[in-house]
């Protein structure tokens, strides 16, 4: 329902300035990254960009960007794919299969939901160093290859599929795996997209765990590399801003393209249950 005219004006009077404040740091990231290096020390600051595109050229030389980008893409894509596979399979088993001990298995998953990941940092680090996995890709991917939220979401979705579909497929001699791959999973596309988007963002932004289990630029992701750059070279704000913008841009693009699915997916965690 549309609010009254006076009410509407009052709403915009609050909303527009607040939204502007929230967007400002992104604007400032771009402005800083395009300013002349010495002008950032002027006070008061310049509010408009000076279009110094060579800042990006210089930033590009400072850090092994192609390597860092490649590492982030590899670990993020692997994580998205693995979480999708584990969530779809487990979600389907919980929703549509009958077997002994299912309730127990489900309560294990629920129990895991209560564990804060910070508590697992030290034991997992020990496990991975025993496996000889420190400073590898798999260390950044395998421990995160299953998601409780992903399993819940897939289960919820599979529960809504009509039972007749499965019965019809069975009459055609279709087993669970083929039914899942050819019928159920394609029908659950909204849930699959939501999980993929959320995992993509989490993977791209991952910081604490990669910081702990990587030690060289060979496998280190973007966020850890940029943080190292920030710590060692904090005197060059212009270059830092250019670096920050390069790591943020892919996420901003995904966000602009898929805002609706993303917001819907995140909001569904709130109205679940």
């Amino acid at each position, binding site marked *: 329902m549309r609010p009254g005219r006076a009410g509407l004006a009052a709403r915009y009077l609050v909303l527009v300035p607040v939204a502007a404040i929230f967007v400002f740091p992104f604007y400032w990231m771009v402005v800083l990254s395009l300013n002349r290096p010495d002008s950032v020390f002027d006070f008061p600051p310049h509010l408009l960009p000076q279009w110094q595109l060579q800042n990006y050229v210089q930033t590009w030389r400072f850090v092994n960007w192609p390597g860092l980008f490649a590492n982030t893409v590899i670990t993020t894509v692997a994580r998205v794919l693995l979480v999708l596979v584990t969530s779809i399979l487990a979600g389907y088993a919980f929703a549509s299969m*009958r077997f002994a001990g299912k309730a127990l298995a489900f309560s294990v998953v629920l129990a895991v939901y209560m564990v804060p990941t*910070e508590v697992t940092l030290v034991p997992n680090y020990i496990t991975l160093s025993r496996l000889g996995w420190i400073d590898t890709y798999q260390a950044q991917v395998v421990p995160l290859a299953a998601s409780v939220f992903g399993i819940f979401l897939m289960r919820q979705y599979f529960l809504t599929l009509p039972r007749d579909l499965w019965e019809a497929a069975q009459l055609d001699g279709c087993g669970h795996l083929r039914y899942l791959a050819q019928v159920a999973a394609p029908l659950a596309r909204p849930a699959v997209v939501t999980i993929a988007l959320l995992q993509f963002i989490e993977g791209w932004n991952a910081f604490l765990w990669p910081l702990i289990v990587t030690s060289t630029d060979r496998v280190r992701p973007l966020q850890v590399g940029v943080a190292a750059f920030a710590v060692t070279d904090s005197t060059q704000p212009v270059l830092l801003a250019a670096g920050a913008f390069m790591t943020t841009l892919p996420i901003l693009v995904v966000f602009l393209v898929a805002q609706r699915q993303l917001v819907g997916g995140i909001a569904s965690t709130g109205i679940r249950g």
Partner: protein
Amino acid sequence: MDPATSFTDTAPVARTRARERVTRRLTLAGYGFLAPALVVLVIFLLAPAVWVFGLSLFKWDLIANNPLFVGLENFRILLTHDDLWWQSVRQTVYYTAVSVPVSMALGLLLAVLLNGRIRGRHLLRGAIFAPYVTPVVATIMIWQWILNADYGVLNSLLAAVHLPRPAWTLSPNWIMPSIIIYGVWQHTGLNLVIYLAGLASLPAELHEAARVDGARAWSAFWRISWPLLSPTTYFLLFINLIGSFKVFVPVYVFTTNTGGPDHAAETIGFYLYQQAFAFFHAGYAGAISVALFLLILVLTGVQMRFFSRRVFYT
């Protein structure tokens, strides 16, 4: 067709055997589907959560690799001799007590204003939500510069209106407020989006009430919408409290991995990280993990006890 009738011409024994075989095959198939997820969750989440309790009973320097059983000694030191631990607890509580109410209240206010069919809704929502999904390290780097004591935008704004200019991240008194400002900026979008979903699920007649202007809308909101939103508020309080109790990355980046001037930004999450991965005190870090775990359990327990009775489920 009744499934039992299809077997009427087979002997009862054969029937039971056949059924057992089917059940066994179904069970195997079920676990086959579950296995990939369960193996990962058990090895990397459930087992470590149990193991960390055992770990906390040892004195163990990760490099020297000689675990020594010391019983509850780590906890005795932590609780009675470690000022830095208590400081990190106080600062975590400070961060939580300010950032959670502020960002939830702001999220609710913005959700109420954005609720309904208003022009530019997606754009405004997207603007406020974007900080929640963008890389934390990158946005903190920009905030560091916005909050810069000498050349920052915020201080030039404060100077323009003749207010005092704090040193923000360089000052022991202002480093926590800096991190709180960042936390609110980063997290309000999540609260907004979930409150919007909560508002959208309220009965349609309530949106009529939103048309009433002024004082009546105000009291209608508190009497009708707010109680109906209580499950959303309860859920948000839950995830906000847990999330803010674990705050780490802002401390790490804002203080360039030092914990701030005079440890003034040390939080439980950061202290845990330092003990484990800067000093390699695995056993002691295990004790900190257990303490954090218990704190979170107590926090959620208290929340359930005091708030669940006030939650209004339709």
